[in-house]
């Protein structure tokens, strides 16, 4: 289902996410798929299928009806038997970018200081800050990954989970869809509570072409999100989990001390709490256990887990970190 929301001022939304310089850098990157997959259209990736590329793949015996143009006559001259020469097929892969747009992701300052592609400005122009909005950070990451996919002539699907269900950016291919992609992502609004597990399961059930799947979420969900990840993996996706957190969630002492009433941005529930060092220590224990559980699940399942805090410079993440982790090349 294509997102029907058409945000006004395409150029404006375009520039809120990236500048042109940064896009140029992204064009040089491509998404790595660790296994060969059967694609749907001709693409730039080796497929499990045999096809018409120049790259030799294998021989097989001739059976009647085969194209005689593919018989290896040199082999026939030596062996007096007919063999067919098979070549690698180059097809596309499908890149799924799944974005958690729940209210908990929409936390932090709305408009952070941002200087993508521009020379680093002393004092925080490099694209990350301690109170960066998580959703904005996730949207930029999603857009960057999508643009890399489009640049590599891969099929790209972007889906956002929020209270209303799932917003999809229909499978598209080619750089020509880049503007639409950026418009779609820029227009995404955070909303309400999401059941991440249910959303991921639903997506896994409907996605026809398994491929490389990026999940961008803070995983603040009661169910933990692991069921959804398992469902996606069962559907054949190669999963990359980008666990996006604000620094204040990892180290709450940065922002939280004293007598406070904490309001949950998703549920609106309030919780009175007097935060002291003992409580902070307890929080650190709980956090480590929760995050460790998710990371352990991913490690056991061969899922690539990356914890990313929004104070990491964004361009650093995309241009270097993801490359080091073997996600893009």
């Amino acid at each position: 289902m294509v997102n029907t929301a058409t945000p006004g001022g395409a150029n404006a939304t375009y520039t809120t996410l990236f500048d042109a310089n940064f896009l140029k850098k992204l064009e040089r990157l491509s998404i790595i798929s660790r296994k060969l997959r059967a694609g749907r259209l001709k693409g730039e990736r080796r497929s499990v299928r045999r096809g018409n590329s120049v790259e030799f793949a294998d021989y097989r015996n001739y059976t009647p009806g085969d194209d005689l143009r593919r018989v290896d006559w040199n082999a026939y001259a030596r062996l007096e038997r007919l063999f067919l020469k098979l070549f690698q097929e180059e097809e596309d892969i499908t890149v799924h970018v799944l974005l958690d747009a729940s209210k908990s992701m929409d936390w932090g300052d709305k408009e952070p200081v941002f200087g993508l592609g521009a020379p680093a400005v002393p004092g925080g122009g490099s694209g990350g800050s301690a109170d960066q909005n998580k959703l904005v950070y996730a949207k930029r990451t999603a857009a960057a990954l999508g643009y890399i996919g489009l640049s590599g002539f891969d099929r790209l699907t972007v889906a956002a989970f929020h209270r209303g269900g799932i917003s999809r950016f229909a499978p598209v291919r080619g750089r020509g869809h880049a503007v639409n992609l950026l418009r779609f992502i820029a227009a995404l609004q955070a909303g309400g509570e999401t059941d991440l597990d249910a959303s991921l399961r639903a997506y896994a059930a409907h996605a026809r072409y398994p491929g490389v799947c990026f999940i961008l979420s803070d995983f603040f969900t009661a169910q933990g999100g692991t069921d959804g990840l398992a469902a996606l993996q069962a559907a054949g996706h190669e999963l990359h989990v980008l666990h996006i957190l604000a620094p204040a969630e990892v180290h709450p002492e940065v922002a939280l001390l004293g007598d406070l009433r904490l309001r949950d941005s998703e549920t609106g529930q309030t919780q009175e709490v007097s935060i002291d060092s003992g409580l902070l220590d307890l929080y650190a224990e709980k956090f480590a256990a929760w995050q460790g559980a998710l990371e352990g699940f991913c490690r056991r399942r061969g899922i690539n887990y990356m914890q990313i805090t929004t104070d990491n410079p964004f361009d650093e993440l995309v241009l270097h970190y993801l490359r080091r982790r073997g996600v893009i090349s």
Partner: protein
Amino acid sequence: MGVLEPAGLVLALLAIPIILFYMLRLRRQEITVSSSMLWRQVLQDRQANAPWQKLRRNLLLYLQLLVLGMLALALARPFLEGAGQASGNIVLVVDGSASMQAQDGADGGGGTTRFERARNEAHNLVDNLAAGARVSLILAGPVPATILSGGQDKAALHAAIASMRPSNGTGNMAAAITLAAAAATSPDTTLIVISDGAIGEEKLPEVAANVHYIPVGHSGDNTAITALALRDAPQGPQLFVNLANLGQQAAAGLLNVEIDGRLWDSRQVTMAPGEEPQLTLLDLPIDTHLVTVTLKTSDILPLDNTAWAVRATGAGATTLLVSQGNSFAEKALNLLPQVHLARAQPASYKPGPGYDLTIFDGYLPATLPPGNLLLINPPNSPLVPISGTIAYPAIGPADSSDLLLRYVNLNDVHLAAASRVQTPAWARTLVRTAGGDPLLLAGETGGRRVAVIAFDLHRSDLALQVAFPILMANLVGWLAPGSALDLPPRLLPDTALAIHPVPEADKVTIAIPGSADIPAQEVTLPVSPGLSFGNTAQLGLYRIAQSARGKPVGTIEWFAVNLLDRTESDIAPRPAIDLQGHSVSGGKEATGPLEIGPLLLALAMLILLLEWWLYHHGTRGVLRGLRWRPR
């Protein structure tokens, strides 16, 4: 540490409303977090102590409680004992007894006396006085004296301390503490006693003050002559000497006995620790008059190693009995060894000099003779006005404590009649009738002693009682002492004694013995009624000579002033003394209570400022600043 006004601590109860206000009106800042999921898990562990949890991080509350606590404490006027400067009202009692002359005041021993050490301690105390401190200085000698009262000028205090001298006698610490109690006028009084602790067993009065005791002295090794008596026995004079070794080590010394300036006996004495040997020397020369006994040892208190004794010369008193005939009186007077009795008839009597005592029995001449008088049943006269006669008076209460009535029991005496005497102003009544009329009077008038028996001896059975010769002996002993001196059995230093010169004498010269650091001197006193001499601070033999118009009259007399006090000789320093009903241990530092109330107030003010600053800048930011560690 203690407090002077404990009631001030009641202010601390204000903490209850402050805590209640905080618990009731705890204002929480609302902060939106992405998800409270983890916080809910965390808080499940903390729900049990939720009410106290509210208080835990409340810095402002803690600061306010701290300020309140400091204010309450400051109102209670807290002080630190021995924490530096002495302050407030300080009463400094310096022991001025003989034992303070022991020469072990310095820490290394030797040289300095305890009293000098005590003076140094007092000087130190004055040097360290806090501003506004008032010092009263009391010297606890035989007669305690307030040297300075409420002094604040350090120079004057130092001068007063320097002027103090130890006495040679027994200190009266109880009287000194009583003086100190009178000086303890304010609640911040500190009583500091500097002493060696040799103050006897007497219970000291209580003082409304903090008490400190600064002990001086280190050694208890001392030998002493603790008693000396010279008495006449049938075989001749005998000398009784009591020695004591009050130290912890055996002591040996040479005991020299000088009689009238000549060495008469010298013997080696060895004493085990705690031994108190008694010596009796018989066969002293029959004319023994002045005896000096010296124990030559090398102890640290030489004061008690010499004692003196004076033997009465036995010079009699000439007495004239003017009577129609009174065999009772004659017989009683003749029994007295010092009385040389002459008799005269009233008709042939002419008043004139020559008699120390004149006894008029039922008669009084118009002109009185010089010398002392005993009037028995006198007629009416300006000296003893008589308004009538009392028939069969019963003997009333008698002042048995008076020396003249010593050993006199008048309970069985009956009278047929007595004169109704109007008590003259000069006389005190010794015995009264049951109705209150005087029967026996005594007093001094016109430079003479007069005693009156207001009834006829023949009209009573007094003369038949045992009391009569005793009463006569007492009266004659007082009226004709045979000596110019009224000597108690033992004359202690700094004790005044009355002098009764012969009637014609106009000057009395007293030679005062010297000591190691004070030269001997002579004092000449003009004769006056009630003449007394109190400059008996020096131990030794005092010589009294009388003169009239430059010519010596009467006899030369001697008296001895001795320490002879086992308590003072027992110089072992006491680490603690009993004051205020409990034992007060000695402290090295001469300090008074240091009031820390002003300091607390200043601290409270600072904390209040901090609290105000935190209120305006927020505790969260400050705490975060303290805790923030970049990862």
